């Protein structure tokens, strides 16, 4: 493309960014990154269908609409978020409304001493130190337009800091609410999680919306794991049917650390997840599991990267998809094993269930191995429910539609059942059941 053409193009994200007035955090690294990213946006354009990684994710529906920065004063009340609350996290709840921290709806009083969860502007100095060290380096905003956009316009990033040796008893629930009742808006929530040595924590990031208007969310979450620490990360995307959701969940693993990530997505009109795990020290383990439910005209796109930079690490990825209606699901799972990263054991599995005639699935598992003493495998299947299984259930007196619902439900549970938060599992089970149309009773829930 010539310079002239380049100049004529309107930079969509740059325009959106110019309209924003992000809250000043007072943290130098965040402000510097903001300026740098804003600069980058005036050079970069949105990826097009010609980019291999964006081939199946047309951005037209996004670009056709204009989104304004979401306002700070919003009418979101407790009753609006009640359905999404998690009982176990009652004392560790952070609610972000339209990208702004909401002190009224949040509750983080009972965290152990030395731990912190809340906006960076109120964080203690030792926490800010770690933010200064790692912010932006894990999610790598220099790599793509949307992460840069988030870096430029995010307000006051949420920080979770778990002190050395502390095992948090209860999960921390970060609930992002976007209010699109009055207009089309955009938000750019950002989360930074820092786990000190030997700590153990569960963080649930949750995205919901309100209102009939379209809205656009770019979210970025970064996790840094010190040696021997453990983070269990759940990302739930249950936005409204008009939302466009683009997110990156990045993590950097220290020696012997363990990062378990589960992404459950069934909302939004179109959404894209980009998990990125840098397994950067020996004996670390990363899990990035995902469950995607698409129906009607929904488009889902998952581009994951598992990068093994050091020897003796293990990873596990199970990505399950159920596509109904005219839904479309895209999966590209990259696994890298760098030179001299010997004795890596990496496993990746992608299963796709097509329930309707018009659903589409595109999948591209990808292994790139530069070390010889490794055990890496991937598998991908696209198919439908087995006739025999359905017949078996029918012969036991279950109707065909019920049998299909039950089997689909069982198929989805493989991902959900690993999440160790009972009330969340329950909510997710209901979500899946609602999707498949199965009727479940409380006693059936795993």
């Amino acid at each position, binding site marked *: 493309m010539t310079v002239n053409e380049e100049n004529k193009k309107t930079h969509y994200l740059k325009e959106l960014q110019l309209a924003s007035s992000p809250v000043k955090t007072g943290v130098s690294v965040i402000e510097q990154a903001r300026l740098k990213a804003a600069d980058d946006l005036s050079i970069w354009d949105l990826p097009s269908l010609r980019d291999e990684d964006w081939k199946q994710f047309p951005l037209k529906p996004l670009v056709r609409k204009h989104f304004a920065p979401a306002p700070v004063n919003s009418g979101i009340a407790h009753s609006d978020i009640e359905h999404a609350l998690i009982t176990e996290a009652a004392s560790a709840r952070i609610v972000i409304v339209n990208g702004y921290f909401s002190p009224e709806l949040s509750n983080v009083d009972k965290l152990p001493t030395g731990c912190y969860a809340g906006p960076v502007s109120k964080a203690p100095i030792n926490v800010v130190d770690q933010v200064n060290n790692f912010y932006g380096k894990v999610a790598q905003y220099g790599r793509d337009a949307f992460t840069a956009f988030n870096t430029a316009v995010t307000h006051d990033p949420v920080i979770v800091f778990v002190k050395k040796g502390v095992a948090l008893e209860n999960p921390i629930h970060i609930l992002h609410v976007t209010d699109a009742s009055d207009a089309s808006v955009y938000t750019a929530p950002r989360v930074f999680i820092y786990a000190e040595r030997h700590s153990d924590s569960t963080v649930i990031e949750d995205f919901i919306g309100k209102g009939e208007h379209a809205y656009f969310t770019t979210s970025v979450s970064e996790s840094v794991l010190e040696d021997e620490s453990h983070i269990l990360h759940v990302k739930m995307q249950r936005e409204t049917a008009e939302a466009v959701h683009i997110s990156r969940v990045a993590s950097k693993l220290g020696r012997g650390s363990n990062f378990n990530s589960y992404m459950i997505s069934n909302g939004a009109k179109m959404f894209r997840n980009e998990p990125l795990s840098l397994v950067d020290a020996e004996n670390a383990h990363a899990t990035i599991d995902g469950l995607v439910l698409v129906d009607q005209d929904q488009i889902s796109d998952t581009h994951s990267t598992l990068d093994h930079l050091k020897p003796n690490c293990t990873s596990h990825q199970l990505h399950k998809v159920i596509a109904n209606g005219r839904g479309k699901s895209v999966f590209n799972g990259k696994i890298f094993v760098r030179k001299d990263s010997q004795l890596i054991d990496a496993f990746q599995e992608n299963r796709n269930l097509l329930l309707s005639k018009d659903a589409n699935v595109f999948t591209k598992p990808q292994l790139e191995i530069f070390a010889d*003493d490794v055990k890496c495998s991937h598998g991908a299947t696209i198919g439908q429910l087995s006739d025999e299984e359905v017949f078996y259930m029918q012969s036991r007196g279950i109707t065909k539609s019920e049998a299909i619902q039950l089997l689909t439900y069982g198929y989805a549970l493989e991902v959900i059942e690993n999440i160790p938060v009972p009330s969340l599992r329950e909510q997710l089970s209901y979500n899946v059941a609602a999707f498949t149309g199965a009727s479940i009773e409380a006693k059936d829930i795993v």
Partner: protein
Amino acid sequence: MSRLTEAEAVDQAASRKYKYGFKTNIEYEEFPRGLNEDIIREISKRKNEPEWMLEFRIKAFHHWLTMEEPDWPNVHYKKPDYDQIIYYSTPKEKPKKQSLDEVDPEILATYEKLGIPLHEQKMLQNVAVDAVFDSVSVATTFKKKLAEAGVIFCSISEAIQDHPELVKKYMGSVIPTNDNFFAALNSAVFSDGSFCFVPKGVKCPMELSTYFRINNQDSGQFERTLIIAEEGAQVSYLEGCTAPMFDTNQLHAAVVELVALDDADIKYSTVQNWYPGDENGVGGIYNFVTKRGICKGNNAKISWTQVETGSAITWKYPSVILKGDNSVGEFYSVALTNDYQQADTGTKMIHLGKNTRSTIISKGISAGRSQNSYRGLVKIGKKADGARNYSVCDSMLIGSECGAHTFPFIESSNNTASVEHEATTSKIGEDQIFYLQQRGLDEEEAISLIINGFCKEVFKELPMEFAVEATKLLSIKLEGSVG
């Protein structure tokens, strides 16, 4: 004496001979370097081609001009200078050697290991052979047998002269002239190649492999192959040879088209062992091939088998378009890379018809500092009810300097189809080697045995005698790379 100097020596000997004027000068007039419309017209004229063939070439050339050399494959090389290539030269007759004693002993040793019969060794090295094994007489017998069955098997230039209606109907029907950069180039300048037509209901009386092997000739830089199997016909074709081939043309851009009508069955096997460059990655052939078959009719079957061990860069994706209902596509591949070789190979299975089935078995072995990639596409169209695909791609790494990559693309738009793909990457287990050493095998034998087990699923698809040679070929290729 190194292998390359041997090739040079042959060239020198060849030019000496021409000086004495066995052939007239005009026939050896070389074309100017580079490519333009005049050159194409001249090629077409020399080959005495009909007007439509020239149009075909010119059209392809104009497409080619608008295209860019692709850079998406996972290979790195210096792009050839297309203005420096001589696009046409009349085949040279190589000097006959008196006996095998004149041949580089290193090459003979390789033949010995491959178990190539003596008379074939002579053939391959252009040594005058005695009357009993005279290739011409053998070939004539074969030709007679084929003609009796009604099979047309000749060079594509002959086919253009003798069977223009067939060539016109099918050439470019599977790989259009504007398909890709290298296919367009080939369509514009192709020199020669093979043409095979098996009429309705005929089962080709012999493996065309056998014939081809005896008749082994310089395939040329821009080879073009077209195979047509009519209703119910069956044919098996083998291209290439396990014996090492030295060629001074660096760029090879061949096109192979297969057409299978109702109930037809085409089996196409390739063994490629071209010059891969020296151990420092200098020189070697760029092998950029477009191969595609179409199962046009119902119940048709196309099967590709390839053993790729040579070339500095291999870049090919033998594909099958499964258009007819119940048609079957198969792809079996072993790709071995050593030293600085790079291979980006795989297949495409495009399911369009109902109940179409495809199988992909790909085995990649990388050693030395080589890079080996599998890239494949399985696409299930909207109307391909009940389509099935099963793919396995396994990679094995030998040494810590090489790389193995897999890029499978799977796309499905039909909810009654099922696609399964699995891939593994591993190394040869120390316990496996130890176990075999315990049983009295040395390390190299043990590795060779394990590698052959790894590739067995593919080798069993090859015609018998080639399977035996391919097995040996792999162990020769890997000699000294382990330890």
